[in-house]
């Protein structure tokens, strides 16, 4: 494949990710902070827009697909993870980041999250967890707390919520982190660690939704989040400890890199027939002689 001729690939600015399209999110939406943080993280990691593929699911966050620069794909509800995985395995020279909401990622497309963690595709997945379906105007999502009255649930939700981090850690992911949409600095640092990680990275962003989530607004989270970096001797290699500390979502909510497997082997490095391959799948599309394989049938 022909590569772009970036004059100075290491020279990247925040403005490079600027888009002229105007954001359409509600005032004080958590998405503003998340967008700013991902731009900062990409710039800090010296990744140019033309060397990244940002993949968006459907929902409020997905409406930001054209409000940031980079190569971008805005797909179908719940399907961002397999799309991003297919892209990532094809060309590891392009950084692939996937964004999804709590509805698409933990409801309709939850199986894709399981597969991606098991296969360890080299995708950084950022979960916008705002505890509701925002774009369809405030219905319950798989993370909405039980009993809360939502659009289409006038007497409160009758199902119990999923605990995203408990669920993800049970699958022994290669990387699991949590951050908060009200803290751009923390998000940036967490995203940066995620971008440097080899393999599938899961980052849950506790996202405020001022319009539909009145139970856990920005201030509610702000009072409760606690960075694991501030815990003495916290060892992110200890998954048992991560499971313990991730559990509390009511009083003291742990944020930061909760777990990282230092021996993570990404998907393409697990492929027995490609261990010696020096090229990417995108570089290899050319006529292949089938003569030898055909002769085996004679």
């Amino acid at each position: 494949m022909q590569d772009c001729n970036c004059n100075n690939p290491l020279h990247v600015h925040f403005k490079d990710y600027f888009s002229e399209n105007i954001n359409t999110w509600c005032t004080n939406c958590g998405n503003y902070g998340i967008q700013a943080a991902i731009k900062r993280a990409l710039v800090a990691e010296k990744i140019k827009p033309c060397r990244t593929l940002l993949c968006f699911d459907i929902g409020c966050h997905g409406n930001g697909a054209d409000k940031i620069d980079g190569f971008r794909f805005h797909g179908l509800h719940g399907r961002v993870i397999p799309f991003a995985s297919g892209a990532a395995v094809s060309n590891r020279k392009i950084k692939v980041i996937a964004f999804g909401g709590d509805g698409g990622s933990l409801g309709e497309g939850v199986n894709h999250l399981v597969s991606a963690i098991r296969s360890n595709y080299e995708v950084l997945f950022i979960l916008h967890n705002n505890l509701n379906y925002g774009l369809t105007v405030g219905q319950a999502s798989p993370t909405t707390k039980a009993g809360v009255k939502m659009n289409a649930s006038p007497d409160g939700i009758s199902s119990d919520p999923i605990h995203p981090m408990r669920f993800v850690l049970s699958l022994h992911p290669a990387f699991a982190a949590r951050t908060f949409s009200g803290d751009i600095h923390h998000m940036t640092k967490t995203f940066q660690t995620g971008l440097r990680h080899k393999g599938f990275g899961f980052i849950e962003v506790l996202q405020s939704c001022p319009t539909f989530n009145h139970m856990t607004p920005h201030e509610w989270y702000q009072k409760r989040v606690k960075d694991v970096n501030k815990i003495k001797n916290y060892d992110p290699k200890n998954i048992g400890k991560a499971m313990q500390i991730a559990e509390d979502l009511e009083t003291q909510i742990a944020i930061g890199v909760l777990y990282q497997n230092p021996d993570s082997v990404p998907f393409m490095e697990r492929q027995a027939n490609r261990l010696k391959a020096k090229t990417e799948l995108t570089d290899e599309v050319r006529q292949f002689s089938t003569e030898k394989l055909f002769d085996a049938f004679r």
Partner: protein
Amino acid sequence: MLDIKRQVIKIAGESGQGVNSIGEIVAKAIKKSGFHTFGYREYPSLIKGGHAFHQIDFADHPINSSSRATDVLVCFSRVSFHAYLPTLRSSGQVIHMLPQLELTDTERQLVREKKIKIGYLAAGDLAQEAGGKTIMANVVMIGALWKLMALKLEPLIEVVRSEFAAKPNVIEPNINCLKKGHGLKLKDLETLKITFKPQASCQHDALLTGNHLIALGAMASGIRAYFAYPMTPSSSILSYMADTYHETGMLVKQIDDEISVAQMAIGAMFMGTRALVATSGGGFDLMTESVSLAGMTETPFVCILGQRPGPATGLPTWTSASDLNLALYAGHGEFPRCVIAVSNSKSAYTVIQNAFNLAEKYQIPVIVLSEKQIAESLFQVKELEDNVTIERHLAEGKKLTTLESGDRYKNTKSGISPRWLPGANEATFVANSDEHAADGSVTEDSEAALTMYSKRLRKLEFLRDELPDPVLVGPQKSVLTFVSWGSTRNTISDVIDLWNKAHPKKSVNLLHYEYIYPPKTSKLLDLIAAAQPLVLLENNAFGQLGALLTAHTRYQFSDKLLKFDGRPFFVEELIEYLEAKLKY
């Protein structure tokens, strides 16, 4: 009835008795003896038990279809004896290994009327006598079959040697079993009268399934990733891709569900490699939202849809051509697509290569229909056709360096906009499942939406112009023309050869659709204008190709020959149809 000029061997037994592997050995050895073969399988959707067969038709001319009737039935199990005895032709013969086999009154009458000969071998004991194990009984049976066919044993020994090459310690016992069977006096049976001569030119041919050919064609076209969830009749593409991945270096990955399969392929194609997926109707149902996504984002997508009878789980291991409508209409919204159907060994290899070129040129989903009858039947092939040149239609050179974001979905005359890959240029864009402007940015403006909608649909007109016309198989002039698609071509082609030689004044031909959508109608309209009698021939109940052609020509097919019992058209069926239709 017309002499069908072929011999038919049916190897039958329970699933799990090695029916298919023995069938393939027999087919290869008959081919090596100098004949043209066609191998057809019927088997149930279970691992052990039931009854299954592998049928080998052979002749002195190329054949690609099956006969309904059997000349020699080789039986490994009681159930299969009772199931397939009625398929024997007059004077047909049975070799079985079933002690104390009892026939019903009806069967005795059938045997009398058809003068069927039945021979019993204590094949298990004979295998042990030959120094083999009881499980080699079926090898003794094919030794006896060779004696019955009066063919030389060497080609069969050669095939057995190469089949067991990985297990050298079982080669000699198997060959001893073959010789044991071949040395027997088959007192109740009669040497088969093969009236045609073998040809040395066949010996080096290849025997492979339609799925092998599709996989090879895909490899030739440069695919570098194969994603699939197993589903009959497409599963063997996955197995073959995996078994050969050290040679091809391709990424081959079994995925947890068909939605992910389609999405991963679209992701891979968007990033810029070539990825293939294959499934059957039920799996394709799950992919339909992704087909729509490929249409909207103008991302190339190629899917093999191997058909079997539905609805729902249907007849999982049987054949059908009932998913044309699914391929034509799958996915919400209106967008351009291409639907192609493979038919024979040649098209299985080449069509898939064209599919990738078309998908990349027009940036559309291309659905390639196959059928169990093509996917799993054994075709005899001399050489592969020349490869189709890879045409990717990506922006390159100076054009690539001058691109701007707004070029990606630029409104052009043909509707085709420049396409480039992530990382190929600093001009970025968004591929958007929402309606969008030229750089992919979302828009809900009526004029902009109409422009983009029309741009996409315009591609269909240019695609229609580029696609090949349906082909006329047989003579230019005929008293009757079949109109069909898919594997029906193979049976009708074989029948056309026999029929037209026997009845030159009442010759028939076939208008065969390989490239189905967008439909090409001029050849059909010529036939309609000339008042040519037309017969629609399809392996489904609705006459789905007929309905599509009616919609585009207003011609109503009054004559239809439709079959939808899970079986392909057999040679005798079409001959009987013609004899009745053309008053013989």
